[in-house]
């Protein structure tokens, strides 16, 4: 009874993000996983758009699997960016790169949108935003970020460093 009430309340209330990150400052941070996630969201969006419906059952099965992977990688992007935002980036980074916080917030919103829709424009914006965050990350490490063509079927760029 109480559980049903709480579940009903939770559906009405707007959901915010609360963080439960690893408490150990391990020092191992990298934007690469978020980039891979963003490329995967693009690839899954491509596959959904290219899906053939010759066999309806197979098509439904494929849609379910591809959507599941798209969802998982969207979640992964949010988790990876959340770790960078909370555990790695410090106040001085946000001061030096005033758009950083806005970029992270934007990436999280785009990630949610790409999970809710089959929208290549949003997926591309998501990747571009993640790439910009990655560039800032490497700059904070006193490294020189460069964009190179990725070896992935997405045919888009990734950010690495010199």
């Amino acid at each position, binding site marked *: 009874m109480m*559980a049903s009430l*709480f*579940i009903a*309340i*939770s559906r009405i*209330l*707007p*959901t*915010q*993000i*609360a*963080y*439960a*990150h*690893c*408490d*150990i*400052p391990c020092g191992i941070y990298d934007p690469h996983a978020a980039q891979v996630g963003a490329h995967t969201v693009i690839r899954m969006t491509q596959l959904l758009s290219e899906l053939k419906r010759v066999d309806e059952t197979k098509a439904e099965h494929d849609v379910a699997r591809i959507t599941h992977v798209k969802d998982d990688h969207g*979640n992964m992007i*949010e*988790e990876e960016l*959340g*770790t960078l*935002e*909370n*555990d790695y980036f410090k*106040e001085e980074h946000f001061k030096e790169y005033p758009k950083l916080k806005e970029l992270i917030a934007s990436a999280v919103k785009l990630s949610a949108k790409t999970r809710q829709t089959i929208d290549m424009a949003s997926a591309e914006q998501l990747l571009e935003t993640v790439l910009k965050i990655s560039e800032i990350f490497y700059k904070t490490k006193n490294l020189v970020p460069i964009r190179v063509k990725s070896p992935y079927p997405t045919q888009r760029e990734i950010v690495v460093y010199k």
Partner: protein
Amino acid sequence: MLLSSFKIVGHSMEPTISMGDKVLVSSIPFLIFKPKVGDIIALKKNKKILIKRILQANPSAGTESYFVRGDNDKDSLEIGWVSKKEIVGKVIFKI
């Protein structure tokens, strides 16, 4: 926050609360009772809401503070003691 809904990002509260779980947080319990050891709380740190468990309490007036940590069997090197004013509510339900 009388009552708020949060989606969890991170693994530090596993196995109690997992990544992607939703929780309801309310400030009402701590308006009536003091936080106690074992409570899972939401606290505000660097403008962000964190979910942790209270492991030790120092409820003395003036210096009321609580030692918090995640359940994920890891040392809390970054959070540690938090003041009462940083605590925004108690996790009252996990969905």
